[in-house]
């Protein structure tokens, strides 16, 4: 019996010790891990749409609570002034959610650029949304406050041939981005001011 108790105690203490150690390490590295994830997953898209920014948009980021979702915003500094934010939104595509990074100039409410981050669309068709620079270039200059639509739905975006659903999903993501943007605009302006101090 004594042996049994010893077995249980050693096992428990070891497990608990391990749990504590790992939790500590996790707390210590959480921030760094998040940064790494953003840099390597979202990084390329952000860098592309905020091309020419004089700061590091990934380092200069902030979070705003939208309902119970925490959203990451990346800021871009152009000509010595922070005036652009980039953030991610989603739209339902053919093979699941499509992630779209959208950059918006705050003073004009105009889209500066969009870039598809994640998707699982058919290669050669839907995937062109990410691979064809011409498709995402169309979004540049649209007003973020208005819904974005493809030409079939009386909008202005030319759909990728053979991938209407994907194109619609991207538009939907952009429209979603607009909704988020409009809802959070006051907090955004507030945060941006802090950067420009």
């Amino acid at each position, binding site marked *: 019996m004594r042996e*049994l108790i010893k*077995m*249980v*105690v*050693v*096992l*428990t*203490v*070891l*497990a*608990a010790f*391990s*749990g*504590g150690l*790992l*939790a*500590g390490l*996790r*707390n210590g590295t959480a921030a760094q891990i998040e940064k790494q994830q953003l840099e390597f997953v979202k990084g390329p898209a952000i860098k592309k749409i905020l091309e020419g920014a004089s700061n590091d948009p990934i380092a200069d980021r902030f979070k705003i609570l939208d309902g119970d979702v925490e959203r990451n915003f990346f800021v871009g500094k152009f000509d010595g002034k922070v005036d652009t934010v980039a953030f991610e939104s989603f739209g339902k595509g053919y093979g699941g959610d499509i992630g779209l990074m959208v950059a918006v100039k705050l003073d004009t409410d105009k889209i500066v650029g969009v870039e598809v981050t994640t998707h699982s669309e058919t290669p050669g068709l839907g995937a062109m949304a990410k691979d064809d620079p011409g498709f995402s270039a169309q979004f540049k200059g649209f007003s973020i406050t208005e819904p974005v639509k493809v030409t079939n739905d009386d909008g202005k975006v030319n759909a990728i041939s053979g991938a209407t659903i994907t194109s619609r999903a991207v538009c939907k993501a952009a429209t979603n981005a607009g909704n988020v943007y409009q809802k959070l605009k006051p907090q955004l302006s507030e945060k941006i001011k802090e950067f420009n101090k």
Partner: protein
Amino acid sequence: MLTALLFMLGLGAACGIMLSVASKVFYVYEDPRIAEVEAFTAAANCGGCGYTGCSAAAVAVVAGEAPPSVCILADAEAAANIAAIMGVDPGTAEPLLSYNTCTGGDRAADKYYYMGINSCQALATLYGGKHECPVGCLGLGDCVRACAFDALKIGPHGYPVVDEMKCVGCGACERVCPKDIMEIKTMSQKLLHLNQYDDRIAPCQQTCPAEIDIPRYIYQIKNGDYEGAVNTIRERNPLLLSCGRVCPHPCEDKCRRGIEDQAVSINQLKRFVADYEMNSGHHLPVSVAPSTGKKVAVIGGGPAGLSCAFFLRRLGHDVTIFDAMPKLGGMIRYGIPEYRLPKEVLAWETDGILNIGIEHKPNIMLGRDFDIGSLMAAGYDSVFLGIGAWKDYTLGVEGENLGGCYTGINFLTNFALWQQEDGAKDRQPFVGNKCVVIGGGNTAIDCVRTLIRLGAEEVSIVYRRTRKEMPANEVEIVAAEHEGVKFTFLAAPTRVIGDEEGNVTGLEYLKMELGEPDASGRRRPVPIEGSETVMDIDMLITAIGQGPDVFFKDESKRLDQDLNITRWNTIDSEDPVALQSSIPYIFTGGDSATGAALVVSAIGAGRRAARSIHLYITGEEITPPAKTLFTNNIPVSIFDSVPGIEKSERTEMPELPVEDRIKSFVEADLVISEEEALYESGRCLQCCLTCYNKDVA
């Protein structure tokens, strides 16, 4: 942080408690060596060894199926430790040794010329190998390549030779051999083996009721390894001195040399080495397995009981022999006369058997002094009933109870007791002048030869068939003839005639003639009407056969109900190999199971019963192995002609001259000399299943 801590705490505790409880609740006994061996494996459960995890590998090691070096992660030191657990310490384990069971090799003729790759596995796929022999070694050395200890090499005769110093009993060779030539067995496993149809054994070994490896011990004699020969015989027969004297050697009837020439004098060779050991003055050590703590009662100290006790003890069990007579030996002590088997010799032999740690309780008789119930109460796990066949059959004719009338076993036993026991002076035998012994078996011959030595003037045998049909050993009949015994054949006693005082005076018999052969192949004697004849006699011994005396059954309630007895009064055992009676823990063998038979058959039955008892008390199923040969022969091994033999003189048994031997009970048969033994062993063809050593190429 706290949640993580609590979660892991909970998980650790849950797993720990669950496993601790489970290990108690679901506890199953297993060999403690398994845990010891497992502690030395790497416990990574990697499966790299080919076994399914470390504990499976440990089980395999303990079962002798895997080498101590099985773990590919553990170092040489761990392997050495495992080896220490498994074998080097004799107190805990029996060493396993590899040995090959084919000694033919290249000797067997080829069926075809093989040009394929150098692998037995491959060769075996082509019609089972290139040799004519269906079971022999293929000789391409898969086993040699499999041996990690360099303990095997293909010898000069094309079969593998084991270096016992290097062999660790890992079993690698056994696993790769497509012909099952290589066997890894402990001594116990070897003792338990019964001849099988797929064994590689010579006709003599197939025929021997005790299954002795005859070619092997003859080979050892030829090489001067007399002690080795003794040990080889002791693997199957603990009574080699007695057997060497009294065995009618059925093996010699199947000797291949006997087909073209005279058979090898196998029994004389056995007697030679047995006497060699006795004359050396000390018993050769007999290896005994570690004690199992199980107790077995052997009832009857005759050949079957002694053999059963001997093998049970060697398998590690505690054995007690309960015997009704003052000294051990049973029928070979109290039935076989002194001149055939000197009791000094027998005592030396039984002492050797008791020496390995068997208890002997003399003068205690089942049914008179104790019963089976009291044995079970005393904690015996199993019982062997080897009570022999001591009850003479009677003629069933008028007057056979007159004064001067005796029965065979009764007469011989009484005489033996008088001769051997100091306190038995009142048993002095009556010896008539004109003595008649009825019967044609060995008991009858023993009676007449005893009577001659006791000084009877005229001794004759009355037998209802002819000499040819006499069941007694030929040598015995011849000896009796030499010693002056008269024979009256084809005579069936009908009446014993007595005088007023109740003493026998004559024997009336009917003359017979031979009719059609009966079921046993012997021609049936048919009485000739009106041919009654009367012989004048003053002593009559009826020795017409005997059966077991099962009076104890009535005395013991337990047995009364459950123990089945056949109509010949033998103890019923459904299977002559398993020898288990209708009461599961009671086993039988020898004369009590078969009726009067050969000593060597009783010895074989003793070992078979020991095997069954061993299986029974270790909780295993008692089924005879498939393909058990029992007393049959493997057809392919029985030849009509044996080419390549040059005739050579058979060494005959030396005997005392008749005039010397009939005056006393001094042993009449003598042992052959060492020179003769070496010559005779050289006559052996060293047969295996189908191949043998030819005299001429």
